[in-house]
């Protein structure tokens, strides 16, 4: 397992910590915790991370509470654009990876059940 190989597979290894989570764990709650973490730890210097981490947590909260703006698919599209801009335009690695775990949970595990996991 290497950073290059995990990137190749479309997954993120963060700082290299591996945490094993089984299917009894409340995944949406973990995602909310992750989103809150990145919002709290953002230094606030650049716009994509300072505001992006807030908008990401808000969108995730709507999904977790079952009250999306529009459809779940629309929220996924919104989160996709937030992710892309944070990854591409943030100054440092915190903003660039702030959406990685959430993105893979949404798309690979289809946590909010759009029936379109890949």
């Amino acid at each position, binding site marked *: 397992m290497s950073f290059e190989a995990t990137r190749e597979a479309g997954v993120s290894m963060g700082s290299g910590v591996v945490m094993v989570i089984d299917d009894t764990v409340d995944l949406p709650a973990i995602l*909310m915790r992750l989103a*809150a973490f990145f*919002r*709290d*730890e*953002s*230094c*606030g*210097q*650049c*716009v*994509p991370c*300072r*505001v*992006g*981490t*807030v*908008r990401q*947590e*808000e*969108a*995730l*909260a*709507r999904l977790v*509470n079952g*009250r999306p*703006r529009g459809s779940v698919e629309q929220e996924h599209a*919104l989160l996709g*654009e*937030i992710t*892309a*801009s944070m*990854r*591409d*335009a*943030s*100054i440092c690695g915190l903003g*660039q990876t702030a959406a990685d775990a959430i993105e893979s949970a949404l798309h690979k595990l289809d946590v909010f059940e759009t029936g379109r996991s890949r």
Partner: protein
Amino acid sequence: MSRTRTGAPPRTVELTLNGTPVTAREDQTILDVARREDIEIPTMCWERTLTPVNACRVCVCEVKGARTLIPSCARRVEDGMEVETHSERVNLSRKMVLEFLASSVDLSTMPNAARWIEEYGADPERYGPPAPPFEAGERDRLRAGRHETPDGQHAATVHQPPKVDNELYVRDYAKCILCYKCVEGCGTDWQNTFAIAVAGRGFDARIATEYANPLPDSACVYCGNCIAVCPTGALMFKSEFDRRAEGTWDVERQTRTQTICTYCGVGCNLILHEQDNEIVKVTSPLEHPVTSGNLCIKGRFGFQFVQNDRSGLPAPIEDEAGPEVT
């Protein structure tokens, strides 16, 4: 900032800008070259008289081979660089930066903001209605690393009442995009007063005086050089702020007169902005070799004597009416 160059002259480099080969000096930034080629790249935190902080990220461009997008305001050109200033990736990030700011900050007095929002198809409304504004001083008391879990039905903002604590200028931080320009102008780039800095972290970050003291109790020397570089109108002459509040601020009716400050021998150029035969604001051209846009309190705010209304003062004492001296 203008600095005297020493050593070898800059080399010429060849790069590709949106597919077109161009040449440039190696000390130029991507933004410099794009502007020379008449390509508009929006900027918010960049100013020609300040060190780039590349914080707003609205000027990002795609450079071939780079993993992330590159702030064109700060990145120097290199030989063989292939730059795209308006690729799909770039436009998406610019749209998101504009959306992020427009959905959390009041951009109503920021020149170009509305045009860029339209050009890049930003839709600040899609984050939901704004959350209720903060009370005065509330944001100054926020502690780093903690926040209430949102329900996502309202978009968090920095809306708050303006800070009006002196007669010269107003700090309306509901309009602050945290571009760092005021901090730089007050600090090492120009004034070296260090009256303000960024306090707090993340979305709670804000510009503050020490201990969030009111300006009269802070280190501020009222040079107004922060106002001169503020891109959003968050920092504003009180004379402008009051007229805007009354609805009488009208740039169309204003004239600009360039003159030289009479207070000392430095020779600072002033531009007097007048409306209804009154001076309402004083600026200095950013490109002026003496000031680079900076002034001191006398040039910036010492215009009141020109237009003192003496009608309310007692009439001068006439010799005849004086007491008889025995």
